[in-house]
């Protein structure tokens, strides 16, 4: 589905990414790991269309594409950012539909927000995700896991084919982490491809089909999770092992 071929990214004298190949298929969860500054965020931003790579090719469904934030969305690539970008003062449903509110016409002319339809659709999305989030609750009063569900439900609204998750389990409690991992498994079952950036080794090993390790902008490993181990990945991240 998504293919990066020898992608490089240079910021002035700094080589943030060097000659990286990456593939994510439908229904595949790829865990992207690496130390701070290894290039994970840069890679994610290239796929989300925020950065254009300075070299290499990006392919979508086998064809070359030029990604912008808008065109990435149109292709079906949705990013869920670490800081979640939710409006705390609005309800879960309002956040899910923010910027693409559903409306109906009152007396055939006056456009008004269709609260019932948005509530219904959000509730469906939360159910699909197996989350206990309620559509009418204010985000301000939600747990970290529920917030994550709102952010993912928002991204799900457009039925994306690839989701980019940036540190979805950072800064939430252990119980909520289990919820978020469950959300990711749910998305996978529905055939959504997932590029998961995480620092948490145990989370990546719990849900990822394949693990990609970056070190100083280079890809040093790309192998099925089953054939690797947390010890090996740690060694790859720190550089104790050159490559695997």
């Amino acid at each position, binding site marked *: 589905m998504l293919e990066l071929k020898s992608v490089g990214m240079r910021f002035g004298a700094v080589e943030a990414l060097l000659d990286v190949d990456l593939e994510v298929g439908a229904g595949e969860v790829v865990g992207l790991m690496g130390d701070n500054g290894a290039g994970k965020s840069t890679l994610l931003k290239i796929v989300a269309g925020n950065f254009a790579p300075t070299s290499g090719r990006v392919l979508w469904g086998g064809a070359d594409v030029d990604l912008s934030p808008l065109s990435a969305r149109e292709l079906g690539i949705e990013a869920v950012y670490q800081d979640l970008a939710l409006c705390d003062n609005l309800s879960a449903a309002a956040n899910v539909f*923010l*910027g693409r509110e559903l409306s109906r016409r009152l007396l055939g002319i006056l456009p008004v927000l269709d609260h019932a339809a948005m509530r219904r659709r959000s509730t469906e999305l939360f159910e699909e995700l197996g989350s206990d989030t309620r559509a009418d609750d204010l985000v301000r009063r939600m747990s970290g896991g529920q917030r994550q569900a709102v952010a993912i439900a928002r991204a799900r609204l457009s039925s994306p084919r690839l989701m980019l998750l940036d540190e979805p389990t950072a800064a939430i409690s252990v119980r909520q982490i289990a919820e978020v991992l469950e959300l990711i498994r749910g998305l996978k079952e529905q055939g959504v491809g997932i590029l998961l950036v995480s620092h948490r080794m145990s989370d990546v090993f719990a849900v990822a089909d394949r693990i990609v390790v970056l070190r100083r902008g280079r890809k040093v490993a790309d192998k099925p999770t089953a054939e690797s181990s947390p010890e090996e990945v740690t060694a790859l991240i720190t550089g104790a092992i050159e490559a695997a």
Partner: protein
Amino acid sequence: MKSLRRAPQSLWVTLTVAALAGVMSLVSEPFASSDNIFNVSRNFAFIGLIALGQTAVIATGGIDLSVGSVMGLAGIVTGLVLGSGQPLVLAAAAGLACALLCGVVNGALVGYLRLSPFVVTLGMLSIARSLALVISNNRMVHDFGPDEDLLLGLGGGRFLGLANPVWLLLVAALGAAAWFRYSRLARHVLAVGGNEVSARLAGVPVARVRLTVYVLSSLLAGASAILMIGWLGAVTNALGQGYELRVIASAVIGGANLMGGEGGAFGAVAGAALIELIRNSLLLLGVDPYWQGAFVGGSIVVAMLVERVRRTGR
């Protein structure tokens, strides 16, 4: 206790208004007279109308300090155009057009150039007041030409026992309440005030939303000014001087959060009612009018304290 804390601020303010009115009708005979009620309701209608727009501005996390001066400018322009023999419709349109222009300038500077709302509208407070002085040449306008009776009837008249401005406020408040609940724009207003970055990422046209609320605020100030000169029967360039404080106080007491993201129509009206009631009560109780500013100012601070206490509970 928890559910009480979660009750909207507009409910608390309404209860306070009812309690204060109850006490006043016991201790002061003239308070409950129909004349006094009529006057109080009319006086707060002018403020309440503008507070509706101010609430929308505050809900985006902004503030509009220029409403009092915009009233002065719109009032003077309307009065002069009427005095030159033009019909009321045209004069009102001219006054509203001036208000619109002020709102567009405020909104464009805050929305598109991202200048601080406080500074931009403080500038407009000075500019609009100065323009009112220039245009009127510091003269009072009390000759309203052939449509004078129409204007005086509009602002000073009554219908079914209520002053006309009160009717207008009721209609506007119901409209605004529906707008807050059912319009996409109002949803975006709250989103911008809640988390601007998130709103932008979600595709909300943040700058346009900001522009719109400042335009609404100015237009309501202009409309209120036109009604007010009809009631007063004359207009000076001092019309609306100092009103920004009472308008902002109404909105804030009614639950608009100066940090953005919260506010509603009924709160603004209830807040305006409370302030006018406090002023009226002090007057009837024989308190020196010089104290009014202290009480109005104090009520804002108390409202903020109550809000803080409520907030710690959730």
